[in-house]
């Protein structure tokens, strides 16, 4: 399939990039391109100017003054996954990165681009089915369509598309912050606020202005994350999106109670899903399989299912219980 004609601008500085996109309502930043070039060729997205940000000096990883790590937006997934400071301090994040896509794609895909990647919903990607995310007001073909892979949490009657990212699941659990540069300067966005649930406007996925560029992701210092883990359940052993994935970081005190817990789910939400209810249900309680199951029940209590994806409720609960049980015994 041939792509529509486009114009191309290689940005030499962040300011140039922001100015170029801000000035043209039909423009878009181009980072690794692993989703964007695909969707351009499919005709799903139709920018006419691509502003290439791949040459910007944003590939760094550095320690922040508060003991966390700042990840440049153009750092590639494969490099971040294997960076010693990520492997040591946030192993679950490293695992999430390495369980996503293939090595070729991880070499291309940037961290900033990963935050902006689009859903794999087949009705969004086919370019013609009714889809409120692609064409607001046209309807949602997935509601009564083939929706086995679709979301059960954070859904609306407008959209049930699953958020595809693995590393974003780790980042919501870690309370990361997205740093952006826009026409009005730098701002920071707590990562859970960066991913918008579909509600009545599924086409609006992030609180970004047109021309606002992600420049970095800040991951705070979090000692419990040194024991973090990410497990991904999927139809194939590799190179496949999650049906259910679990990021966990848990500390159990010497009395056997859950002292600290960060828990998030992938594959089940319209956004990377921080399991706040499960965390609240477990903090201060004995770290037992029974309590893990009760916490999982609480997290999935409001699941919105259809016949084809209802299995994800049981799947997610079991994945949570198994993962936390393994943390206790490890």
């Amino acid at each position: 399939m041939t792509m529509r004609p486009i114009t191309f601008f290689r940005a030499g500085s962040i300011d140039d990039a922001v100015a170029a996109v801000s000035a043209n309502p039909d423009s878009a930043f181009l980072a690794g391109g692993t989703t964007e070039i695909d969707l351009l060729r499919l005709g799903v997205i139709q920018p006419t100017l691509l502003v290439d940000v791949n040459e910007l000096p944003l590939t760094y990883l550095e320690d922040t003054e508060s003991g966390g790590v700042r990840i440049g937006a153009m750092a590639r997934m494969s490099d971040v996954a294997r960076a010693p400071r990520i492997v040591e301090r946030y192993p679950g994040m490293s695992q999430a990165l390495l369980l996503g896509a293939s090595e070729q794609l991880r070499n291309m895909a940037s961290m900033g681009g990963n935050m902006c990647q689009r859903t794999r919903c087949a009705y969004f990607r086919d370019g013609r089915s009714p889809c409120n995310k692609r064409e607001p007001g046209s309807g949602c073909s997935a509601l009564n369509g083939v929706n086995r892979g679709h979301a059960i949490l954070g859904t609306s009657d407008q959209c049930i598309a699953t958020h595809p990212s693995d590393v974003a699941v780790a980042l919501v659990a870690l309370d990361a912050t997205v740093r952006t540069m826009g026409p009005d300067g730098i701002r920071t966005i707590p990562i859970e606020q960066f991913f918008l649930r579909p509600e009545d406007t599924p086409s609006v996925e992030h609180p970004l202005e047109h021309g606002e560029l992600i420049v970095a992701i800040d991951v705070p210092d979090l000692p419990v994350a040194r024991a973090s883990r990410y497990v991904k359940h999927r139809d194939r052993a590799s190179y496949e999106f999650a049906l259910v994935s679990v990021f966990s970081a848990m500390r159990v005190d010497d009395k056997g109670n859950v002292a600290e817990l960060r828990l998030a789910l992938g594959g089940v939400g319209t956004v990377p899903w921080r399991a706040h209810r499960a965390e609240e249900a477990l903090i201060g309680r004995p770290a037992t399989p029974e309590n893990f199951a009760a916490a999982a029940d609480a997290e999935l209590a409001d699941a919105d299912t259809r016949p084809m994806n209802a299995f994800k409720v049981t799947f997610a609960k079991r994945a949570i219980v198994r993962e936390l049980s393994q943390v206790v015994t490890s």
Partner: protein
Amino acid sequence: MAINQSTAPAVTGVRGPEREPVTLDVNGSTFPIELEPRVSLLDALREHLDLTGTKKGCDQGTCGACTVWVDGRRVLSCLTLAMSCEGHQVSTIEGIAQDGELHPMQQAFVDHDAFQCGYCTPGQIMSAIALLREGNATTDADIAEHMSGNICRCQAYPNIHAAIREVRDADDGG
């Protein structure tokens, strides 16, 4: 075809949509050509440089047949715009034999019958060489995981993995 020029104030350096001069560095040689910005690296190699060793399978980043190296890293040329490769070194299957001698990985694919139809083979070999360079081929599971981006519909995987192991274990390291 004018695109959005009316709404875009002076951003100098915008190229296209018509053909523009582009200089690509492929296998150590410099190629000045003319391309529209929408042309992928894959199409630039195959249609403009006649380097047809790199194959077009899915053209959507799924199959790995188009795997090449950019600055020594394996990437998918179907999802890479040729214009974004200016100033970077592209390596393709045509560039890995040295002085008329097959690269050890090419020879190992021949020796292990690591293909049937051969269509995925250039991508498999570019990926396999990069895998050994990356150092993540210690176990069979490692090889399977890190080669998962290269699909072989003839199911030659056992022989592909055998070829990779042989080069990995060779005294000269391939």
